[in-house]
């Protein structure tokens, strides 16, 4: 009897051990991750990642469908053939090459100015302790929170008066004065970054005979490469995606009133896609079909394609430099 009891207790202990091992496997111990927990993490990441990508996948799949595929309820995701006609027609109605060139200019030139001016201003804030610096930083943050609508109308009148409207100048001039699109964030990024540059370095340069500006150009700027990359990327993306202000200032609210060069950008032409498509179609002999979902999706795809390609090429530098710049201000 004693023996039997011993055996049961032994088997009980074994079972406990098994249970413990199982628990450890699923939930993990203090120093190892459990398999169950890991599985949960991956499940969450994959499912949320799918939800994130869903619109993009939807866009890609729809943009290749022809009219029969669209109406066929049995076809959900994979089109029966690679149908390029949608892209051709969207291409035509958007006047892609000209618009693409314009977009690059509209996003690129203000971005370059933004990088230069914001780095100078950020350096000024980080390096020097002058009177009223705190107040100025406060004003900087205030102008970030202020919605652009509050100043939009006087600015519009002002730009019209000095002849900036309907040209690229309407973006270049504010960027020159540190008031470009979301320039406040960029100034803060540079401010944070330059504060981390040791002061000793700049003082050493000064002893070697470098002036204020030379110290900035030769010492501070070369060390700020990650910050420059981040600002450049964000600035170009935000300028590219800005439809509202671009339409108001650069493209012009009353289209083609002026006799000068008529600007357009991919995002703005996507905004007015349906109208411009219908006008392009109404030209006799254009051979374009009635607008449908697939053509719209193809147009959307075309307008973000350059950014997507840029992102895929630069994503590694992008993710890494975000880690290094301390985009999060303290």
């Amino acid at each position, binding site marked *: 009897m004693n023996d039997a009891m011993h055996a049961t207790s032994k088997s009980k202990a074994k079972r406990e051990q098994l249970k413990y091992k199982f628990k450890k496997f699923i939930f993990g111990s203090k120093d190892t991750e459990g398999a169950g927990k890991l599985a949960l993490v991956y499940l969450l990441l994959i499912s949320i990642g799918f*939800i994130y990508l869903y619109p993009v996948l939807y866009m890609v799949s729809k943009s290749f469908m022809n009219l029969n595929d669209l109406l066929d309820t049995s076809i959900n995701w994979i089109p029966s053939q690679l149908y390029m006609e949608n892209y051709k027609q969207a291409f035509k109605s958007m006047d892609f090459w000209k618009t693409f060139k314009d977009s690059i200019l509209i996003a690129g030139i203000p971005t370059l100015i933004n990088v230069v001016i914001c780095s100078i201003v950020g350096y000024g804030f980080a390096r*020097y302790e*002058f009177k009223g610096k705190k107040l*100025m930083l406060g004003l900087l943050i205030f102008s970030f929170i*202020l*919605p652009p609508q509050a100043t939009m109308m*006087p600015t519009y009148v002002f730009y019209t008066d000095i002849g900036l409207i309907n040209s690229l100048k309407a973006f270049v001039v504010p960027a020159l004065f540190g*008031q470009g699109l979301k320039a406040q964030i960029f100034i803060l990024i540079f401010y944070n970054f330059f504060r981390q540059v040791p002061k000793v370095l700049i003082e050493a340069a000064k002893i070697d005979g470098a002036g204020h500006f030379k110290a900035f150009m030769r010492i501070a700027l070369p060390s700020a490469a990650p910050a420059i990359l981040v600002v450049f990327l964000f600035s170009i993306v935000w300028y590219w995606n800005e439809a509202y202000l671009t339409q*108001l200032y650069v493209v012009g609210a009353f289209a083609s009133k002026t006799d000068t060069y008529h600007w357009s950008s991919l995002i703005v032409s996507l905004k007015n896609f349906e109208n411009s498509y219908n006008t392009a179609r109404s030209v006799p002999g254009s051979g374009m079909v009635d607008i449908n979902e697939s053509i719209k999706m193809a147009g959307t795809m075309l307008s973000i394609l350059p950014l997507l390609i840029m992102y895929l090429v630069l994503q590694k530098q992008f993710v890494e430099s975000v880690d290094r710049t301390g*985009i999060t201000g303290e």
Partner: protein
Amino acid sequence: MKKNRVVKPGQLERRENRVGYLFVLPWLIGFVALVAWPMVQSFQFSLNKIKLLPQGMAKLYVGFENYSQIFLTDPDFILGLETYLMETLIAVPVIVAFALIISMLLNQKIVCRGFFRMIFFLPIIIASGPVMQQLADQEAASIPMMNVTMIQQLLDEYLPQVLAMSITSVFNNMITLLWYSGVQILIFLAALQKIDTSLYEAAKMDGGSAWECFWKITLPTIKPMILLNVIYTIITMSNNEQNELIVLIYDTMLSATGGYGYASAMAWLYSIIEAAIVIFFAVLIAGRKDVYERRAKKYRRELKKEKRLEKKIRKRGERHERRYARYKQKQSKKGTTKI
């Protein structure tokens, strides 16, 4: 005759720091010319009725009539404001909480971390107004597997209609909301990576669970980032071109009946409300004390109490001493008179 100047310590440094003005000068000019002055002007506009004539602008001072007109005779603005308020108040916590969860998942040691990060940062690149508009038109902005009508019915039963409607719209535009959280994920991720890992190790030594670590280490450390993200979210939610009110202001500006004056009044009102929302959330978050602050406050209060008690005791002692001295004096006086 040169004055004998006394060089004060730190003068050279102060003079050098003046160069800083030169560096920030472009921004300062820009701020005055393109932010401060237009703000004043816009306020002036909002007090006038403005007609665009071929000769230029014709202003007619009307005082605050534009503002009262918004409230009394313009149903569009008030209705838009109502939905905007409800949606913002619900969407902001959803977006920030979601961004925090995603960034914590991405911060773990997992395979294909770079790949997952690439997916979650993608919306930063492509989420712009017109693109979102196209996707929303195609109903690609809601999660297909989610049974929204069921949720809607459930909500309609138990909640007041305004609240139910805004919650349903959050569910309907789930992907739109998730897509707006790209920058927020980025900010959280950068903040999480800066937290010293030795803190977690020390907590583990003391037997803290992951749950406790989250509440007592992670959350207090990234609290400023939460505030930053909330403000950022409010601003992007309010200033994107899918917002009905923004479209309304834009249309009013160019319409014949509205004009610049009326649109300026709308813009000012809108800005004030947006600022109020920002302040509301800022107070809510910054005013909220975490464990350590609460404990420190309690400790400080106890310290104060102790000090007060000490003072009281000391005073009492002094009083007694004085009384005793007086008593002694009296005694001695009595003794001398007797003798």
